[in-house]
């Protein structure tokens, strides 16, 4: 899409490019410096467990508040209005609860594990560790499959570069940069880069929010949303908006984000002691609120701004554009490119790129560490040497980079980015929720129950729109092959072909099923060993 042809020009200039380039060079230097401090796998994965509170908070917020969160949040704000704020509020309440009580995370830290699958081995068996680790890596990579493209689309909107070739070049350059410094410095370079990102990003976003309010006016923002979206623009339970099932699903997502997701857990595992774990998570609850609230607000501002400009309105608010995920992802970037002045634009873009990098580095590092520590190493007879682990981890990182590059270019999204991410990640956490919760707090939880729950996680795939279409077509073919189509009727067959299930309802059903199977499996097939000695609760 050529924005210039529609009379839309970004305020991004040469000065802004210089600021961005300076930031990127600084990032490479950090990778080189951090490499000098890496001598073993514990240094590489959990920074030698030397993470203190402030840095822990910065790195946790830096990871979870990435460019992808900005794109997701702004897309939700653009399409759903203020009612999308419930995601931030749930993030705050749930993370605060986890931080204050220390539920799941304190027992994990006390167990001295680096990854969640490592806990599976202590509690259940080595096989559970390998299986759980593999599922975690698959889900992690799937959930971040669209990260690069989403980031690239946003930065293109910000800079005004709209050539498809620019998109591919930008995606490739970013992946190479992330791989370079993550492979080089591991967790040490990740936490330092996250800290810098936290500083740049917080300043940039706070300024942009204030600029939005100053430029559009709070009264105008509220009245425009009220006028166009009605109650659904504010009330998250409204059936024309998100609805009750969506909010319930998001409460589960908020819990998984802070207590089950490996990138959060790894920071708890890297903390000095259990008190620091609680402090880091409690303080980070503000970050979990902010990572959704500010981007959502920017999305709402973009919606109001675009509705006031005819050329933009035609481009972004038509029925077709509202259903096009890539257009709704780009809308806020285009709004910022019109609002933010030169110079500040460079700072904001550097912040966005920093956010892009810091999420990728943590995620890539996390999945490669899990793959090596929990899948490869336990599967080998004599284990792996430190050197072999570091080498395998770095090789796997390169594989991950290639995967996210190819997946982003190939996969048809067909739903909001946020829904895609939580559903892709759901392959892991829908099953991990019962395995961890019951594994820690229920003595009778067994290995068979854990396997059943982990396998159930694959049901999350039904929440992805392309998978639904594929399943629908297969079911329709099956109905035709068995002559059952005449019983169903033409309209029912068409619905089957265009299968459109509610992602939140699918998610809630799969979570419920995973818990049920964990309980049933544990009761019917109890473990022969007594795990009371390895119990960590």
């Amino acid at each position, binding site marked *: 899409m050529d924005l210039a042809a529609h009379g839309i020009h970004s305020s991004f200039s040469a000065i802004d490019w210089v600021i961005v380039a300076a930031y990127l060079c600084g990032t490479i230097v950090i990778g080189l410096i951090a490499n000098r401090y890496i*001598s073993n*796998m514990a240094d590489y994965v959990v920074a030698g467990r*030397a993470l203190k509170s*402030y840095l822990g908070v910065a790195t946790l917020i830096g990871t979870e508040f990435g460019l992808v969160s900005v794109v997701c949040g702004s897309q939700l704000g653009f399409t759903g209005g203020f009612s999308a704020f419930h995601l931030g509020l749930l993030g705050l309440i749930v993370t605060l609860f986890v931080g204050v009580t220390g539920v799941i995370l304190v027992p994990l830290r006390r167990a001295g594990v680096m990854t969640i699958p490592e806990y599976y081995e202590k509690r259940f068996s080595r096989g559970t560790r390998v299986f759980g680790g593999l599922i975690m890596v698959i889900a992690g990579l799937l959930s971040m499959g669209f990260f690069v493209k989403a980031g690239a689309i946003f930065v293109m909107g910000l800079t005004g570069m709209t050539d498809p070739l620019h998109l591919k070049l930008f995606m490739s350059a970013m992946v190479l940069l992330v791989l370079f410094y993550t492979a080089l410095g591991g967790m*040490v370079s990740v936490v330092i880069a996250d800290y810098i990102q936290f500083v740049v990003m917080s300043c940039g976003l706070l300024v942009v929010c204030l600029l939005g309010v100053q430029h559009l006016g709070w009264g105008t923002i509220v009245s425009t949303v009220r006028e166009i979206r009605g109650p659904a623009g504010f009330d998250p339970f409204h059936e024309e908006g998100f609805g009750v099932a969506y909010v319930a699903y998001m409460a589960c997502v908020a819990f998984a984000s802070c207590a089950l997701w490996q990138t959060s857990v790894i920071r708890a595992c890297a903390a000095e002691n259990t008190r620091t774990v609680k402090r880091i998570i409690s303080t980070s609850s*503000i970050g979990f609120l902010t990572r959704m*609230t500010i981007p959502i607000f920017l999305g709402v501002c973009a919606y109001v701004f675009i509705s006031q400009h005819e050329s933009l309105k035609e481009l972004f608010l038509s029925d077709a554009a509202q259903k096009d995920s890539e257009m709704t992802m780009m809308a806020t970037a285009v709004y910022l490119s019109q609002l933010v002045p030169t110079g500040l634009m460079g700072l904001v873009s550097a912040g966005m790129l920093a956010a892009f990098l810091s999420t990728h580095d943590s995620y890539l590092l996390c999945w490669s560490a899990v793959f090596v520590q929990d899948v490869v190493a336990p599967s080998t007879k004599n284990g792996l040497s*430190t050197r072999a682990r570091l080498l395998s981890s770095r090789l796997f990182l390169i594989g991950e980079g290639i995967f996210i590059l190819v997946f982003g270019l190939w996969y048809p999204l067909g739903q909001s980015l946020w829904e895609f991410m939580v559903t892709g990640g759901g392959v892991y956490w829908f099953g991990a929720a019962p395995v961890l919760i019951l594994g820690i707090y229920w003595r009778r939880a067994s290995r068979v129950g854990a396997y059943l729950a982990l396998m159930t996680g694959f049901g999350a795939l039904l929440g992805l729109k392309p998978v639904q279409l594929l399943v629908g077509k297969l079911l329709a073919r099956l109905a035709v092959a068995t002559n059952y189509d005449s019983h169903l009727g033409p309209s029912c067959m068409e619905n089957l072909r265009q299968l459109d299930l509610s992602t939140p309802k699918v998610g809630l059903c799969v979570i419920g099923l995973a818990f049920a199977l964990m309980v049933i499996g544990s009761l019917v097939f109890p473990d022969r060993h007594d795990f009371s000695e390895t119990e960590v609760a």
Partner: protein
Amino acid sequence: MEFWIKLWTWVLAINLLVFAALAITVTIGGFGNIFSMLRSLRAQNDEQAKIPGQAAPE
């Protein structure tokens, strides 16, 4: 609807204020933590280097 408008207005306002305060605190505190972490890593590495034949902790 008025309830939600009021709620979201307060949520956003308080969030911006608290996040600004958090950003300042973490920026200052985190700076010191970086040096502390690097010192600790260097000390651990030196300690390992002193013990011949000692395997690196995993």
